[in-house]
């Protein structure tokens, strides 16, 4: 691909929505209100696993100010699904059951009833008057318990799905099994000079977005529904509400507010259908806002995991065999990212022989939601820890060893296709050349490196670009701006039309206004929606070219865009070229306004790779690990707005560091979450972290006109192992269980000393 010279792409303009966001003007989910609005509150199960014997709402209903109450009975059972492009489907039956339990509660925090009242205080008071009689059941709180022969069964009708079809035995908590294989792994392990192995465990962790879920819903007397909410996918909210409630999606309008973080966790619906039904019953708009405790107990987390892996290498450093079994917690309903985990585990290396099996296991914890590169961080934690051990055993430089085995263009990915141009080797070269890699370490400090892979998504997007007579433009899409996508979208219009980025107005539109667009997720917004925008802007240019032909009265093929002007190609034609501004100013005379539109169905996305270098200082007295230096290197294909690409890399690294060192869902034996708050669920704060250095590598993605790759997810893949490898360097202990909290690290150091 010839290196295109860009004018706007690669620069760092101020984001259009920035001033609103630094002054407090921007409206997020909880900031919206309607006249006559009621306030909703949700009653949640205190039990990890119980049968609902009865729910008595009569006392609550009699309370002055209470206008409507719903329970699971108000939500029809459905077997409909919402398809997410190639990403599989969301089961709306499960999603409906998750947002209001019908027969059983399956986790601490599972919703059982909701009230709408004239004030939040009255709604909360009413919850205390609802009597739910439970028959408590033993909860399955660990993979081991959920997989035991005498395990408590969450869903009696659950059957294990998968390829090859597993034996259909009795009741099970295993929702799915998949396997991937190549070559003869047993023979290769037997022939390998070095075999390392380990059992790796990670706890359930939360995305940790700072904005709790919120929504306002209005069910009109005409049957039309309007929902205001922070979401990664307004169209998905529309279709999920329609499917769950059995109403026509054409009657639902979803208006996205600004969104205060999601990381995948604001894809499912939790509140919206509840608010719609409460509004329908009460005839008033209803607002529901979760508190933090509800966010932790009932939304989001990603799977706890167990990965058992063996890795075999030859003395010359070639990785020749990998064998792995992995179990991922799905939470209360099927659907962990165990399949993606298996596909990502070995995606960085050319390993000729492997066998991987993965299992999706339901447990009595909240249903997991996507979290940045779902599934990949945990399986990669195992792989990259073991690659580090191979390097140690062979006394090889960990970068050299990785480079020797790294995938490049033409190699077959373990999940099937052949890679196109990819950046892993360039990334590893950049790691080796970075001053961080060779900087001296202090005592009790260690350095770790790790790589990571994520597929990235394409899917469906629409965009319109409207040119104004003053030469400014509006670009409309259906992707909520979760981290600077408005400005990136405006930059693409600027690049195509040659107008200043401040004169492009990016608009995030609602579902009645924008053409169908899939989620702001899967690292797809800049990539796929970006392509729709570029095509729409090119549509504008083409229409302007035809206008010029009309003005000049020449054949359309005698007019072309050159250097930002429209020129006549007619020989001897002396008429000066027309600028976009000149063409825009005369639109009314040449045929009216010009609006370009385009849609894409992007089947392919260029995969993303990244590597991180982490320096850890371990306090041998307390076991506390402090990250003292951190560098993230990533292939962005082409960074549209480098500051926001760096921001994704830094944010993903920080989340991964939190996952590695501190974060974990802690449950008691009865299945109650012990730490549903930011005090005890300890996410990194500013004083926990150093600056996070970044290097953006650009290996153009051939499926995008600018070479763009999605950047949002892969940053969280390398940190778990990068941190663990650094702690290994600092302490001599190979930690295989996260988080590496001070007590665990201290115990590890002590066991090494006593050994």
């Amino acid at each position, binding site marked *: 691909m010839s290196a295109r010279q860009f004018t706007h792409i690669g620069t760092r303009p101020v984001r259009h929505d920035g001033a609103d966001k630094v002054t407090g*003007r921007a409206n997020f989910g*909880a900031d919206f209100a309607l006249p006559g609005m009621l306030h909703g509150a949700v009653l949640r199960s205190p039990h990890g696993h119980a049968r609902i014997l009865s729910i008595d709402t009569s006392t609550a209903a009699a309370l002055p100010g209470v206008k409507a109450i719903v329970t699971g009975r108000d939500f029809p059972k459905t077997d409909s699904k919402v398809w997410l492009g190639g990403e599989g489907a969301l089961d709306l039956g499960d999603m409906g059951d998750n947002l209001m339990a019908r027969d059983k509660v399956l986790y601490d925090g599972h919703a059982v009833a909701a009230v709408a009242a004239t004030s939040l205080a009255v709604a909360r008071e009413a919850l205390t008057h609802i009597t739910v009689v439970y028959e408590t059941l033993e909860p399955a709180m660990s993979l081991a318990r959920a997989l035991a022969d005498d395990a408590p069964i969450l869903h009696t009708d659950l059957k294990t799905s998968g390829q090859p079809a597993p034996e259909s035995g009795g009741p099970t908590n295993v929702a799915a099994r998949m396997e991937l294989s190549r070559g003869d792994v047993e023979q290769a392990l037997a022939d390998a000079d070095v075999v390392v192995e380990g059992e790796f465990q990670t706890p359930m962790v939360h995305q940790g977005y700072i904005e709790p879920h919120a929504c306002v819903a209005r069910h009109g007397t005409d049957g039309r529904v309007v929902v205001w909410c922070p979401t990664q996918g307004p169209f998905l909210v529309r279709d999920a509400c329609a499917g769950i409630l059995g109403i026509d999606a054409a009657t639902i309008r979803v208006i996205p507010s600004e969104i205060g973080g999601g990381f995948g966790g604001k894809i499912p619906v939790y509140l919206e259908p509840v608010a719609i039904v409460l509004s329908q019953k009460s005839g008033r708009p209803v607002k529901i806002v979760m508190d933090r405790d509800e966010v932790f107990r009932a939304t989001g987390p990603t799977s706890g995991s167990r990965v058992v892996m063996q890795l075999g290498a030859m003395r010359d450093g070639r990785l020749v065999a990998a064998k792995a079994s992995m179990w991922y917690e799905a939470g209360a309903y099927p659907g962990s990212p165990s399949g993606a985990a298996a596909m990502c585990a070995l995606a960085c290396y050319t390993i000729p022989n492997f066998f991987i099996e993965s299992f999706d296991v339901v447990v009595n914890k909240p249903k997991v939601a996507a979290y940045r590169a779902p599934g990949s961080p945990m399986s990669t934690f195992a792989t990259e820890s073991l690659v580090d051990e191979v390097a140690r055993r062979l006394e090889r430089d960990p970068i050299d060893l990785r480079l020797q085995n790294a995938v490049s263009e033409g190699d077959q990915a373990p999940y099937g296709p052949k890679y196109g141009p990819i950046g892993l080797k360039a990334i590893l070269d950049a790691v080796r050349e970075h001053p961080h890699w060779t900087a001296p370490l202090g005592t009790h400090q260690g350095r770790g490196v790790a790589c990571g892979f994520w597929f990235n998504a394409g899917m469906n997007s629409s965009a319109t670009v409207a040119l104004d007579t003053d030469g400014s433009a509006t670009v409309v899409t259906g992707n909520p701006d979760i981290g600077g996508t408005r400005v990136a979208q405006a930059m693409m219009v600027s690049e195509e039309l040659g107008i200043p980025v401040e004169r492009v107005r990016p608009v995030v539109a609602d579902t009645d206004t924008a053409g169908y667009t899939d989620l702001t997720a899967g690292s797809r917004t800049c990539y796929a929606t970006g392509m729709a925008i570029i095509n729409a802007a090119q549509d504008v240019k083409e229409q302007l070219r035809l206008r010029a032909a009309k003005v000049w009265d020449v054949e359309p093929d005698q007019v072309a865009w050159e250097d930002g002007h429209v020129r006549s190609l007619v020989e001897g034609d002396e008429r000066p070229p027309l600028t976009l501004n000149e063409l825009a100013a005369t639109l009314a005379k040449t045929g009216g306004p010009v609006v370009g539109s385009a849609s894409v169905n992007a089947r392919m996305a260029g995969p993303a790779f990244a590597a991180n270098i982490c320096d850890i200082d371990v306090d041998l007295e307390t076991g506390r690990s402090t990250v003292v230096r951190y560098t993230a290197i990533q292939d962005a294909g082409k960074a549209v707005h480098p500051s926001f690409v760096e921001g994704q890399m830094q944010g993903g690294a920080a989340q991964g560091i939190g996952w590695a060192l501190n974060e974990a869902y802690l449950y008691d034996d009865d299945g109650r979450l012990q730490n549903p708050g930011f005090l005890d669920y300890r996410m990194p704060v500013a004083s926990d972290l150093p600056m996070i250095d970044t290097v953006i590598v650009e290996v153009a993605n051939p499926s995008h006109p600018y070479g763009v790759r999605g950047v949002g997810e892969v940053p969280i893949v390398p940190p778990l192992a990068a941190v663990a490898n650094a702690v290994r360097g600092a302490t001599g202990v190979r930690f295989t269980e996260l988080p590496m909290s001070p007590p665990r690290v201290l115990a590890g150091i002590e066991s090494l000393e006593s050994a």
Partner: protein
Amino acid sequence: MSRIHVETTINGEPAEFLCSGEDTLLTALRDTLSLTGTKEGCSTGDCGACSVLLDGRLVPGCLVLAAEVEGRTVTTVEGIADRDSLHPVQQAFLNQAALQCGICTPGFMVAAKALLDANPDPTEQEARYWLAGNLCRCTGYDKIIRAVLDAAADMRKATA
């Protein structure tokens, strides 16, 4: 339910409102006075999204009772910018791209202003510890800290 009448000063303007004895300042600001710039991330004092200044002192609005602000002065994110120009820390956040989703940003604006009022020349370490009560899940804090240090330098230059 009996209500408490509160007279106070918010962002330099006299303000009054009614509240219950249990209402927090955060609730009064957001729900009663429609000053929704101040955000709610936890209501337990752990995230800093609700940061406001009470008589110039940085406090979480969710841990202050609304009735406590009687006769005092409150500054919220809506009161940080001048009529005509952004506060240097707001401008620095824009220049550094120090916000992604932006939900934590109002809290950081207020906390950073308090820092720079108290210490015009903070070290990176001082900025990190001062802002440790403000959670940001998107940025990893790198650009936030750079923006705050940039703003400090700009403000020192302006007063030099």
